[in-house]
């Protein structure tokens, strides 16, 4: 388990929106099943005093923590105001802001991450499914039924592809310690190297899978930074250059960060790279 354990109180911002409300219920269902604290408060400016799925709603994070014990926030606020919600989380002293929202203007993301860093608040995302430590805590929107507890760490830039790979792992009898979706945007808070540093301090985690995509060089940076046994899968080997595949993360910039050269660089560092998701369990077994 990294970042937060079952005792952590969760604040959901953007609580009264469709997504926010839906996932408050799912996160609390998960917490109830494993005996965790779950979501203690929702926040939507102007909607204070309401209740969503049995959770009290406050006008601000400051109001919420005055009455509830909370350490982390999960942000569902619409794109235009999500950066603000990250800064509000940091300013209120929360240790972690998990940002689910997609399509946040990149300048907002950069400002929010810089501000959060000044306040020692880690940002996961944006444009991510959150994180799940099986048996401990679920922060975000990952479908819990695919997960099982174990000692494989997973760090991923994708959402559904993560579920695909977690499903393969679970079916192969390989449980997970923590699965972190770091987000698909070009600029994200916690990167592969940040999460790997946390895994290094986690006794439960024995090996880590990096699920990367075309674009940037964060996967290589992460692989270089750690002594943990790692394996990787990189999506986008068939992606044509200069084409945006779905979200901002998956674009090749002027020949940099295309999947083939990324895979080559990882293999040079002796990181085994799966050529398809179904190969991952076999590769991981060899690492253990």
């Amino acid at each position, binding site marked *: 388990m990294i970042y937060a354990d079952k005792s952590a109180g969760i604040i959901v911002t953007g609580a009264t929106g469709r997504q926010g409300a*839906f996932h408050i219920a799912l996160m609390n269902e998960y917490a109830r099943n494993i005996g965790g604290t779950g979501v203690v408060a929702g926040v939507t400016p102007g909607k204070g005093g309401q209740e969503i799925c049995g959770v009290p709603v406050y006008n601000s994070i400051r109001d919420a923590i005055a009455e509830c014990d909370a350490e982390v926030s999960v942000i569902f606020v619409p794109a235009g105001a999500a950066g603000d919600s990250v800064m509000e989380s940091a300013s209120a002293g929360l240790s972690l802001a998990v940002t689910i929202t997609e399509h946040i203007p990149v300048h907002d993301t950069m400002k929010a991450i810089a501000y959060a860093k000044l306040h020692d608040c880690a940002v996961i995302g944006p444009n991510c499914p959150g994180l799940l430590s099986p048996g401990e805590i679920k922060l975000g929107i990952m479908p819990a039924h695919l997960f099982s507890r174990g000692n494989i760490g997973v760090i991923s830039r994708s959402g*559904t*592809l993560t579920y695909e790979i977690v499903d393969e792992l679970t079916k192969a009898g390989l449980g997970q310690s923590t699965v972190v979706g770091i987000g698909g945007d070009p600029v994200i808070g916690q990167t592969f190297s940040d999460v790997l540093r946390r895994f290094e301090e986690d006794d439960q985690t024995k090996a880590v899978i990096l699920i990367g*995509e075309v674009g940037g060089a*964060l996967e290589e940076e992460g692989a270089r930074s750690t002594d943990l046994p790692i394996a990787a899968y990189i999506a986008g080997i068939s*992606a044509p250059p200069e*084409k945006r595949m*779905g979200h901002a993360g998956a674009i090749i910039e002027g020949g940099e960060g295309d999947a083939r050269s990324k895979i080559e660089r990882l293999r040079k560092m002796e990181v085994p790279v799966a050529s*398809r998701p179904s190969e991952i369990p076999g590769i991981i077994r060899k690492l253990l």
Partner: protein
Amino acid sequence: MKFLEHEAKLVFADNGIPVPHGVLIRSADELAGHLDTLPFEFVLKAQVDVGGRGKAGGILMADKKNGVATARDLFGTTIKGVPVREILAEERLEILHEYFASIAVDRSTKEALILFTEEGGVDIETLARERPSAIRRASVSLLMTEIPPFMLRDLIGKAPKEAGKILQSLYTVFRRKDAVLAEINPLVTTPSGIFAADAKLIVDDNALKRQGISQNRDLTEREREAEKHGFSYVELIGNIGVIGNGAGLTMATLDLIDFFDGKAANFLDVGGGADQERVKHAVQLVAGVPSVRVIIVNLLGGITRCDEVARGIIDAGISQEVIVRLAGTNEEEGKCLLMEKGYRMLDSMEQAVRAAVEAVR
């Protein structure tokens, strides 16, 4: 979204960056009416969004005598496949020295990366490869509203101090316009001062709305249609239509098709929470591509409801075969609906991809 040169120059000029005097024309005849405002010698620059425009014949020297005829020739051409619809007619600069200035979003530092070199006028990528030390760099947190003076001094080196002011203005443009890239290549000194001879500006697609831009020009018509439905769509060359949820999973599906020697016709990510209507539109959109012979729908439900997806596929009523892989919420119900209508439902994405590749063989 990329701004064209003349649009970027307008933004630069508004923020105090000197640009050459020029006029935008949409026909050769229009140039005739503007000749009075131009010096005897000028340059005609095709306003097309392609790299290597000069080498591809998109920039022509002209003068008052031959200008209209030269413009007519340029309007008749295509530059790397893009037809010339607008030309910027601009005073010809007497260049003494060329510099390069650029500000971009840097993924690894999460800050604005500022680049400057006194050795402009060459291919900047070549310079970066061969003599990286010739390019000076600095990183600025977007929490800072200005580049600090010490950084400017370090960046410009022996260049005239106006270059520092221009870098500062370029940073203002970068911030005001939600830019992912603001670049001057080359920045030139002339006997009459310093000018941005070319201008590049790319605005963050996620900020178009607050920048007052209603339509992203960089998209093709089908891509724009897809965007209206909230899909991410990219056209490729192949015969297997692909619909997935989530960019990573959809990309992995394309990669698997490639792995089994198939050819994908497109990339379509329906996004999260795809309902019946959206799935129907997605299937119809992909089925409308003439080369598509089979469609693979690969959806892993986090928040996607499989029964709704199944109804969407059935409602689309298309003629091509659809091979489905569905997993997630309400999975069994979705499966039942599809089996009843005789659709092939496979358990893993690998099986589904193999089946699709075999179907077009």
